[in-house]
């Protein structure tokens, strides 16, 4: 029921807003929250409790407790008491069967007693094991919070913004505002954040106010992530001022969770901000002054307050709230009964120190005040206002009042005093253990309303002073945060080559290849593209290869030491294949190294290895200090591989240089003009046919690609390339090798030159050279026309003994071929092995060397 218009109210009565609340149409005003409007409309049940499904209503009305968690427009766990009202919003109850007012599952409250003590599930439902899936399904749906809409993943967009602040103030109460103003007087860069939406738009001279926004934690380097709804601000602040205030604590007595039992601050908000008459007859029980001020507000609003109980003067033994249908009807104090429909109960205020604790402050029990206060703040972090304990009076209520009925320590998790006592009796005698066992403080309020009461109770039961018990560890995030906000927007940058749009226009199927977007194939049948390369002419975009220049008087010395191969004897204009190994002897990357001049080398790496190889070269050179420069030119230089028996003729038509077999030999590197484009041409057998890898400035990409296609080259994609390379038995680093593979096991024992002085991996390879490898990478040919999956098992005598890493159907070979790791005793040429294909074992023969043109005549022709 609304009161007459009052000064200071936040609602604008000229602007009605309506929405649906648990199926009812509810009207409120602009300035309301969803919760205040529903309350004004007479709604009292906002949620059903976690375990017992007891009806619960507004308790704190300030966003601290679990009682008003509802699903708003499909977003679960929204605190409607602080969520601003909006037209047409759909607000629904959570954790209910049937409806908020009548919940089937509330039978657990009546019969549940013996079935729902703490630890009950852990002990009971563990056996028989096979029934657990059934129990789990039931328990998961019986207990819990809102349900996530599984299809909502992309319905909201989240972003992260990196920001800097000279001074960041957390909390917009009087102390926070004063600190912000004082800081602003000496310069700009002052930001104040507060979770209260009503502070949005507040004018503070020279201060940027962010509200509603929550500081989630304080990390090293002054990092404070701030949750502003769909934006996560990552603030770096030179000074952080915490003014998070103090949080009203509930009293622990039987019936303390009944609807109508409220904290004083919540009642005052309803009256003063939203002009709501929260009840007709109120009793106030309080352990501090704050509690009493509410009595004045209530009287002024026309609520009868027949009784105010000051717990500092009287220490009742028994304090029980009784009610009907989940609502409070009376308070019984040591046998004396007072009727009421509103019971304001206050256990004093506890500094909201969590941010400080998590930042590294020490938290100590202040026996003067009866609460925990922060001390020894870390550098760069300050605290002002009641979070320090300033202005708080001494509170010392009973940890738990006697009487009949369920007495809640933790409303989030439905933990009663009985549960706590049982846990202590069972031997959980440290607060950290008791917390985990009972789950007290682990619910949605994250201890805001149950941490202090649980420690008080603990202290009493174990007869240990609060100071000695200490607190449980405060961990970020301080406030619940949507996972989407932490995950951020999915931003996956794609790299495209300078010829990309030519491929797209030609109808290529584009796929991800590491960070790149590359053509899978241009037509429906990759084998047609394979055939073109074997019979006439094909061209593939290989701009994704990593490309480095290594230059300087000691370039050769650097490369000699990075690669197991030898380079010193290589003449200018020649090319050599190289494999990089780590000092553990493992294969890291491969590529070609062309010597362009005495002190200039051109190195290619795998498509995904460019950045890692560059960093690797630079790191070793930071260690060794050779006079050599490493320049990564991957993006600046485009590359294509022109391959097929007609490639020489096609290239000759586009260049004036002599590319005849005599003038341009296999493994030669020459700088020539191709269709007017300065090009570094490398004659290598990339796909096993006569071919040239042409490297040239990226901007000429589409032009040169067009020229080559006009000369009759058929574009081919990654899939045909896989087939072509497999036909040659070429190993793909990262596909056929993994972090355990070394040069010997991968069949490249010819490559390392162990007589070199030193190279990365030499020591490990020396050891590997002397031992027998357990498994080897070999080629295989299937006996039948079946295609094993990559990763298929090699089976020896009924046991898995290896795996397939590549397999393709090859027209040119006339069989299904592949590469696989097999036990060394099965690695001889011609050995029969069995491969599991679709659950059946199929025979295959180990095949050494290339499957196609094993003498390599075609690429050398």
């Amino acid at each position, binding site marked *: 029921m609304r009161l007459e218009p009052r000064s200071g109210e936040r609602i604008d009565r000229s602007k009605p807003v309506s929405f649906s609340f648990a199926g009812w149409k509810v009207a409120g005003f602009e300035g309301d929250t969803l919760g205040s409007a529903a309350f004004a409309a007479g709604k009292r049940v906002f949620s059903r409790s976690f375990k017992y499904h007891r009806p619960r209503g507004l308790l704190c009305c300030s966003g601290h407790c679990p009682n008003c968690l509802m699903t708003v427009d499909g977003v679960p766990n929204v605190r409607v008491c602080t969520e601003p009202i909006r037209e047409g919003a759909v607000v629904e109850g959570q954790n209910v069967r049937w409806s908020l007012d009548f919940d089937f599952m509330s039978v657990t409250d009546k019969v549940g007693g013996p079935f729902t003590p703490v630890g009950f599930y852990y002990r009971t439902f563990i056996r028989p094991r096979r029934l657990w899936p059934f129990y789990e399904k039931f328990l998961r749906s019986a207990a819990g919070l809102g349900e996530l809409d599984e299809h909502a993943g992309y319905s909201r967009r989240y972003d992260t913004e*990196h920001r800097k602040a000279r001074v960041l103030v957390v909390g917009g109460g009087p102390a926070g505002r004063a600190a912000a103003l004082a800081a602003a007087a000496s310069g700009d860069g002052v930001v104040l954040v507060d979770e209260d939406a009503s502070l949005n738009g507040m004018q503070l001279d020279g201060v940027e106010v962010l509200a509603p926004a929550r500081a989630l934690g304080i990390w090293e*380097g002054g990092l404070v992530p701030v949750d502003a709804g769909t934006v996560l601000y990552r603030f*770096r602040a030179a000074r952080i001022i915490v003014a998070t205030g103090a949080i009203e604590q509930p009293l622990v007595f039987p019936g303390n969770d009944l609807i109508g039992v409220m904290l004083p601050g919540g009642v005052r908000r309803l009256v003063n901000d939203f002009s709501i008459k929260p009840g007709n007859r109120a009793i106030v029980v309080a352990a501090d002054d704050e509690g009493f001020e509410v009595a004045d507000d209530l009287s002024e609003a026309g609520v009868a307050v027949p009784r105010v109980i000051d717990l500092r003067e009287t220490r009742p033994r028994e304090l029980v709230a009784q009610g009907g249908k989940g609502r409070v009807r009376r308070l019984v104090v040591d046998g004396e009964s007072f009727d009421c429909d509103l019971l304001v109960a206050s256990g004093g205020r506890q500094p909201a120190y969590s941010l400080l604790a998590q930042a590294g402050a020490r938290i100590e029990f202040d026996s003067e005040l009866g609460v925990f206060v922060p001390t020894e703040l870390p550098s760069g972090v300050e605290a002002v206002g009641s979070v320090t304990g300033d202005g708080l009076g001494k509170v010392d209520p009973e940890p738990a009042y006697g009487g009949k009925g369920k007495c809640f320590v933790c409303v989030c998790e439905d933990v009663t005093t009985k549960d706590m006592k049982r846990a202590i009796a069972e031997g959980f005698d440290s607060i950290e253990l008791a917390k985990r066992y009972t789950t007290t403080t682990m619910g949605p309020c994250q201890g805001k309303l149950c941490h202090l009461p649980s420690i008080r109770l603990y202290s009493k039961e174990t007869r240990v002073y609060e100071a000695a018990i200490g607190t449980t560890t405060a961990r970020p995030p301080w406030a619940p945060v949507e996972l989407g906000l932490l995950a951020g927007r999915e931003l996956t940058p794609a790299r495209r080559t300078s010829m990309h749009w030519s491929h797209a226009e030609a109808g290529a199927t584009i796929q991800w290849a590491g960070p790149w977007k590359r053509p899978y194939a241009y037509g429906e049948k990759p084998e047609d593209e394979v055939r073109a390369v074997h019979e006439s002419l094909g061209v593939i975009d290989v701009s994704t290869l990593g490309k480095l220049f290594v230059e300087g008087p000691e370039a050769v010395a650097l490369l000699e030491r990075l690669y197991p191969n030898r380079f010193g004897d290589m003449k200018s204009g020649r090319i050599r294949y190289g494999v990089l190994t780590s*000092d*553990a002897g493992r294969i890291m990357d491969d590529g070609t190294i062309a010597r362009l001049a005495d002190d200039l080398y051109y190195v290619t790496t795998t498509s995904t290895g460019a950045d890692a190889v560059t960093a690797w070269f630079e790191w070793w050179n930071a260690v060794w200090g050779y006079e050599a420069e490493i320049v990564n030119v991957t993006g600046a230089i485009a590359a294509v591989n022109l391959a097929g028996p007609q490639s020489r003729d096609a290239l000759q038509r586009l260049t004036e240089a002599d590319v005849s077999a005599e003038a341009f030999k296999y493994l030669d590197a020459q700088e020539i003009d191709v269709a007017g484009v300065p090009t570094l041409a490398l004659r290598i057998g990339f796909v096993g046919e006569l071919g040239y890898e042409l490297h040239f400035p990226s901007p000429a990409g589409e032009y040169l690609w067009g020229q080559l296609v006009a000369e009759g080259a058929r574009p081919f994609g990654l899939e045909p390339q896989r087939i072509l390379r497999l036909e040659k038995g070429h190993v793909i680093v990262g596909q056929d090798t993994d972090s355990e593979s070394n040069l010997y096991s991968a069949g490249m024992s010819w490559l390392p030159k162990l007589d070199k002085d030193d190279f990365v991996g030499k020591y*490990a390879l020396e*050891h590997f050279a002397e031992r027998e490898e357990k498994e080897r990478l070999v080629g295989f040919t299937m006996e039948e026309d079946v295609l094993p999956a990559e990763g298929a098992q090699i089976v020896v005598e009924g046991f898995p003994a290896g795996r397939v890493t590549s397999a393709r159907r090859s027209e040119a070979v006339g069989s299904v071929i592949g590469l696989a790791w097999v036990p060394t005793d099965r690695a001889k040429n011609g050995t029969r092995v069995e491969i599991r294909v679709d659950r059946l074992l199929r025979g295959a023969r180990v095949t050494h060397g290339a499957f196609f043109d094993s003498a390599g005549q075609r690429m050398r022709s």
Partner: protein
Amino acid sequence: MSFLLSCPFCGPRPVDEYAYFGEVTKRPGPSPTLRELTDYVYFRDNVAGVQREWWQHRSGCGEWFLAERDTRTNEVLEVILPEPGRNSPA
């Protein structure tokens, strides 16, 4: 980890701009025993305290450098440019 790290060239930047390459190790001399080799390749001191480690300003200027960092607090006491042969063992 969210601390700021000072690149010798670019100044203090968020740590996620850097690549961490682990604590400084000592590469053994020629023909190490298997034990010496595996010690170097696989074992780390993993100290709770100050250690010297390799960093690269990967998303910045690309420089490799050494840092003295307290692993307990992530406080970086010093950043040092490598001088091969003097302060930058593998």
